């Protein structure tokens, strides 16, 4: 499959005198985490299929600084941010799409104060727009009649009030949507945010991802749909905790669109 992916870099585009419409911000998880890399490729397949004119920063991309900011290291965050802004502004980037809600939130909300002003969308928002424009035809395919529940990423949902874009995509898959009791505004965190992904949890009686996965599994879903590489890790671990990985898949909305349409 990989030979089909067309992934130009901003540097290449600039050399050719082109300015792509979107910068695809891949993010650290999307670049390095084996599971998240599959999501990255799924997003690229969709962008390629819909003929979206995009490019990536490639080796010029660096962490947005989100984990540093949430952990309280404002110095490190701002150094990362200013470095990235210098690169982004150098390429005169206007629109950014990203597969990571943490990158999305940081780029959209926290970069403007440091001189980085971009129109930032989450990949589910862009996919939904492409569906609306008829640039992707979405059909149920393998998900027809399957039961799907969507886990809201905190940094897409509560943090930025984006609840419907991923759901509207899933509805198009002809699947049976089931909502967990704690959804949308009252969705429960997967446990990864606020730099928790990178440290052991404090002493408690239960892991947060186990609590959340338990809630999802109670619906007997075929798929737990996610929109964040970190939620994906946490929910996948949760499903493994309950030994359900054979019957329940944890998939990013982008992967589902690709699978359903055999892109």
């Amino acid at each position, binding site marked *: 499959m990989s030979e089909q992916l067309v992934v130009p870099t901003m540097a290449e585009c600039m050399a050719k005198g082109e300015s792509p419409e979107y910068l695809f911000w891949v993010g650290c998880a999307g670049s390095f985490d084996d599971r998240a890399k599959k999501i990255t490729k799924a997003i690229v397949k969709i962008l390629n299929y819909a003929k979206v004119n995009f490019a990536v920063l*490639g080796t010029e991309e660096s962490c947005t600084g989100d984990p540093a900011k949430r952990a309280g290291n404002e*110095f490190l965050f701002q150094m990362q941010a200013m470095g990235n802004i210098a690169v982004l502004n150098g390429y005169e980037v206007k629109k950014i799409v990203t597969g990571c809600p943490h990158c999305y939130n940081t780029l959209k909300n926290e970069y403007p104060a*440091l001189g980085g002003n971009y129109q930032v969308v989450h990949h589910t928002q862009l996919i939904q727009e492409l569906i609306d424009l008829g640039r992707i035809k979405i059909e149920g395919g393998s998900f027809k009649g399957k039961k799907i529940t969507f886990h809201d990423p905190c940094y897409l949902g509560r943090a930025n009030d984006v609840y419907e874009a991923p759901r509207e995509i899933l509805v198009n898959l002809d699947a049976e949507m089931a909502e967990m009791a704690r959804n949308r505004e009252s969705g*429960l*965190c997967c446990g990864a945010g606020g730099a928790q992904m990178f*440290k052991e*949890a404090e002493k408690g*009686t*239960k892991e947060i991802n186990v609590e959340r996965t338990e809630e999802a599994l109670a619906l007997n879903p075929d798929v737990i749909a996610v929109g964040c590489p970190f939620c994906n890790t946490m929910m996948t671990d949760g499903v493994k905790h309950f030994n359900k990985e054979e019957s329940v898949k944890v998939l990013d909305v982008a992967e589902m669109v690709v699978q359903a349409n055999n892109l």
Partner: protein
Amino acid sequence: MISTIVFILLVIAGTAFFTINALKVKRNIYLGKDLDRKDNSSERWKIMTLVALGQKKMFSRPIPAFLHLFLYVSFIITQIELIEIFADGVIGSHRILRPSLGGFYTFMISFIEVLSVLTFFATIAFLSRRNLLKVPRLASRDLIGWPKLDANLILFAEITLICFIFMMNGADEVLYSQGLSHAEKIGDTTSLGFSISGILGPILFGGLSEHALHIIERIGWWGHIVMVFGFLNYLAYSKHFHILLAFPNTFFSNLKPKGQFTNLESVTNEVKAMMDPSFTPPAADPNTPMRFGAKDVTDLTWKQLLDAYTCTECGRCTSSCPANITGKLLSPRKIMMSTRDRLVEVGKNMDANKGEFKDDGKALLGDYITAEELWACTSCNACVQECPVNIDPLSIIVEMRRFIVMEQSAAPTELNMVFTNMENNGAPWQFSQADRLNWKNE
């Protein structure tokens, strides 16, 4: 005549004590750092109307929302009756509004009485939820001691107030129906005919002597007004302050996306100076000691301190906190309660030292809130979303993390490794930046 003097003295004393205490609270809140929340006032009025006046966010949990609504509406409407009590108290009249308002008066008091009965049962329900049913968020360890007593005292005070209202109206009903009321002197002998006390009055006080009825009516009348002033003065010491502060607190809500953390300007200046040698940072104000993040309450903003006084300890934040749900030490409600406790302590310290804070060797961080609580937060914003009066516990947690990381260099070891990786390879893991596009060909 004597009663008029006593009444006026009560009003003056009650108002004066409240004013003194309210000014102290105001002074304490303004110990916080500056923050501009004056923008976009039309949006702010809208939020205040919906969230504080309209109780919008309460209704995510319908049962307590309706119970609370009875108390709230009842509280507001009863203020109308209070106007009459004031007038009667000062002039020495009796039910001064009745002759001029006529049938509307009967309707209004009857309406208040119906609400008072609903409130009575709502209060009983609230007491049971706390003390018998032990609803988890109302019986948690956050509330051991004074907070639990405070909550129960408020509910008992409400029941007492309602009892006074029905003593006053019930006894007066009987007096009126017998043509014995105070109002006889002003030529009014028609019965009152209120919805509840019209029935309750004769049942409870029907057989009593005129003298006893007058005493009961007066106990009710004086009890009512004394309770009102007692309650007003209790507010400043209690979680019940939310009945007033909910309004300014929602007005000054954060209007930005919840995921957006504040930008530390002082850090921006340093980072800019580091990255660009030609950049000269603006001169720092020598009067404000430079500190990154928050160690004590005075490092927080006035809005965060207003949040602390506004918190009514309902615990919706804590009951939706993923860390708390899974048994971690963190409780967003406790973050707010600790902030207020420490602020009150700082205020008392200032009072005792002629308005100057004398170092007591204590701080919000460490003595009130531990690092373990702060590091358990996932920054998911559930607490912020849940709060019915738009309190933001997360912003305090983040400020204190900033202090731990930037001033104490005391981040958890794993996070220090993350920081090092980010500095060296631009990713939280040990992968080289040069490998960032490898996924393309894998």
